[in-house]
């Protein structure tokens, strides 16, 4: 009901009232509450260096487009869960359709036992799940890592890539590991590898002390350990658009209790 400079004609032809500073903050607070956020997120790195090239935002943007397309069409298509060797572009699958929230997690720590260390070789990754939404349960979780051609002389040889959850670490002996997923592929293959790590993310959400990360091994057909870097598996030192990340799918718990505002 305002008048004068506080009202303006919108392009569509109807009168639109300009919000005061207080009203704007109130609107922002309400929208943040709908999104389930306590406050406005403040990403650490500047926007310009985050968005365009990084693998996780690119993947999530593709996922957003797929979900938005589904919402447009209002189709309930049931397709297989996103697992196995795939391209970067996600397909709208049942894991995506069922999820209320999808979070891509940036790899925080990467450790290698590479060709300069005793065998077996491995690569470790760690993700921070402290910011995941409360009151939601994990329906699926994927670890995505890019495989380049590598330095193999035998591109048709089979490689076994296995991913483990680090269950416990010991100072005097090898860590306790829990096998999550295995994939067999040709040494000359190039593209994104997707591993099912749902069990690990469930453990990590139960208690943060279990979050000791993931460990990846590569072996040949005859059981020889191969340095993951030499096999072409890219880590944090790879191009930004091909760095490993984790995607977790959450479903809101059907709790009747809602936060009152």
């Amino acid at each position, binding site marked *: 009901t305002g008048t004068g400079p506080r009202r303006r004609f919108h392009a569509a032809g109807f009168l639109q009232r300009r919000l005061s500073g207080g009203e704007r903050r109130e609107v922002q607070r309400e929208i943040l509450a*709908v999104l389930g956020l306590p406050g406005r997120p403040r990403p650490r790195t500047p926007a310009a260096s985050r968005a365009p090239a990084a693998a996780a935002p690119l993947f999530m943007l593709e996922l957003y487009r797929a979900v938005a397309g589904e919402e447009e069409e209002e189709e309930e298509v049931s397709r297989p869960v996103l697992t196995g060797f795939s391209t970067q572009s996600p397909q709208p699958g049942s894991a995506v359709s069922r999820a209320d929230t999808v979070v891509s*997690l940036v790899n925080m720590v990467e450790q290698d036992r590479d060709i300069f260390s005793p065998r077996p070789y491995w690569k470790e990754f760690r993700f921070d799940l402290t*910011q995941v939404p409360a009151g939601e349960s994990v329906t699926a979780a994927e670890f995505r890592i890019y495989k380049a051609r590598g330095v193999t002389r035998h591109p048709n040889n089979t490689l076994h890539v296995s991913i483990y959850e680090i269950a416990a670490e010991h100072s005097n002996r090898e860590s306790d590991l829990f096998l999550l997923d295995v994939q067999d592929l040709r040494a000359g293959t190039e593209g994104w590898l997707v591993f099912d790590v749902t069990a690990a993310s469930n453990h990590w959400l139960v208690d943060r002390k279990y979050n000791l990360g993931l460990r990846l091994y590569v072996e040949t057909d005859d059981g020889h350990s191969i340095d993951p870097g030499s096999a072409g598996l890219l880590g944090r030192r790879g191009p930004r658009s091909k760095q490993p990340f984790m995607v977790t799918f959450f479903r809101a718990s059907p709790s009747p209790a809602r936060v009152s505002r």
Partner: protein
Amino acid sequence: AAKPPRRRQPKKTNDLPHPNKLPGIFDDVHAADGRQVCRRHELYVSFQDLGWLDWVIAPQGYSAYYCEGECAFPLDSCMNATNHAILQSLVHLMKPEAVPKACCAPTKLSATSVLYYDSNNNVILKKHRNMVVKSCGCH
């Protein structure tokens, strides 16, 4: 109650309702007496105007549809009326002080998604079910 006199049934046709009678799709739907009937309106919330594009990746804004308009008897101009709304409108005619008119409210809602960065640079895709008003009607 006295039996009402028999009326001639109107001739049945296979014609679809006039598209302008479908609420929530077309603008400027008015009842015969000039009142605006229950229909869907749009209020666009621009994330750019809110200065949020440094953390919201997509969409650039949100079409906040809402339902507004009258649910007055007869409800023939509002095709999306429930049986109860028709009955309530009738009772309202008889006892306007005691019984309010039927309400103009969403009849169909759909989901919408937002893609944004959290403070750890993780990217979150959040789906909100039953968030966007697809159509309005009298309840």
